[in-house]
């Protein structure tokens, strides 16, 4: 049963075999949590949002066509859930920027740790759009083709946006490191 592809499982869910959703959850809840956490820096909300994404899959299972990849559909729904979350939190500030320890003079002394700390701060200074594309590419390890489908843009546009986001990240990082 474990050898079934995500698409095959989701098509079974669509046909009424709702138990298969448990296996899809098992396969994807960790990376999905990673994505939501990196976009919000709120652990509890991210856990709630993981549940919401999978509940939406159940609710909107009839819309799953099976011709695209399950993973891109999942991130598509996750972005909608994320948007609703941001709308609910009108006072949404840049994520992670509110994290404790995000003060320059509290940076760890170890060089490697300090670099990671500064880079994390730089990443959180990026706009949601720039951070999102880097998270999808670097942490979710999605191909440009998949990112293009999720964001509903062309692959060429993905290339441009990733390049732009990296330039901004480097500039923010160097500014903090000075």
């Amino acid at each position, binding site marked *: 049963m474990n050898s079934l592809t995500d698409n095959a499982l989701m098509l079974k869910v669509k046909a009424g075999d709702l138990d298969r959703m448990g296996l899809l959850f098992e396969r994807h809840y960790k990376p999905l949590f990673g994505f939501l*956490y990196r976009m919000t820096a709120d652990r509890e909300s991210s856990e709630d949002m993981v549940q919401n994404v999978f509940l939406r899959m159940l609710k909107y299972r009839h819309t799953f066509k099976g011709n695209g990849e399950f993973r891109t559909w999942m991130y598509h729904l996750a972005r909608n859930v994320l948007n609703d979350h941001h709308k609910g939190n009108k006072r949404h500030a840049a994520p992670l920027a509110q994290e404790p320890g995000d003060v320059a003079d509290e940076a760890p002394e170890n060089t490697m740790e300090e670099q990671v700390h500064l880079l994390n701060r730089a990443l959180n200074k990026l706009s949601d759009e720039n951070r999102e594309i880097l998270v999808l590419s670097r942490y979710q390890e999605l191909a440009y083709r998949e990112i293009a489908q999720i964001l509903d843009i062309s692959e060429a546009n993905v290339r441009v946006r990733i390049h732009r986001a990296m330039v901004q990240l480097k500039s923010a990082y160097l500014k903090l490191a000075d």
Partner: protein
Amino acid sequence: MEKIIDYINGELPEHEKRAFEERLALDPELRAACEEEKALWNLMAEIKAPAVNEHIKSRFLDTLQVYKEAAAPRPGFLSRLKEIWNFQPQLKLSYALVLLCVGLGTGLYLNRKNHGEIARMSAEVSEMKQMMVLSLIENPSATERIRAVSMTQEIRNVDDTVIEALLSTLNRDPNDNVRLMTLEALTELADNPKVREGLVQSIVLQTSPIMQSAMADVMLKLQEKRSVKPLQKMLNRDDLNSTVKDKVEQTIQEILI
């Protein structure tokens, strides 16, 4: 320069990749830029997200179970009868005729009957439903309790006993989904002052973030000024989730406007 990140990501088409590598070999400036970008890309991998709490797996499986049971069609006597019936298509026409006659007869009969009789029957049905709600709402299965709560929406005049049972479920039921459904059902009955009062009193009793947040939504929808005090009291809780806190503060402001 734009191609560096695509190269690192393995996203350059084969011919572009070869051309880029040739340039890399000849251009020390490009090589340095590429190394720098690769170092940054690798450093990004060191930023770790916390491990996800394993309990969300069992929480989802519980929810899936409830969802599945609620969505499942209930095969009963009628559906079995239907199956048998499908094997005997020749009887369908005669059945339809009998049904037509019975329908006409019943229509005529009911027309002549006193309207009071119909009202009495409808009241009896309503009373029966209320009794079913009261018995199902104590059931150990969360699905059955959700069924009980949904049933209240079919009752025309919900009496005080049912309202008390719903309020008690809202305050004490261990399952988040059951409490959420109950809140939804009670919101429909919010014209009743007793329900409003019960909802306001329930605010401080809710401890799960999802219920606290839903409570704030309902109070905003009802524009219930009396909820401001208990909502403020909720803000003083040490264990209050920061997202819920923001939302409650916002809700209080919007209610007060």
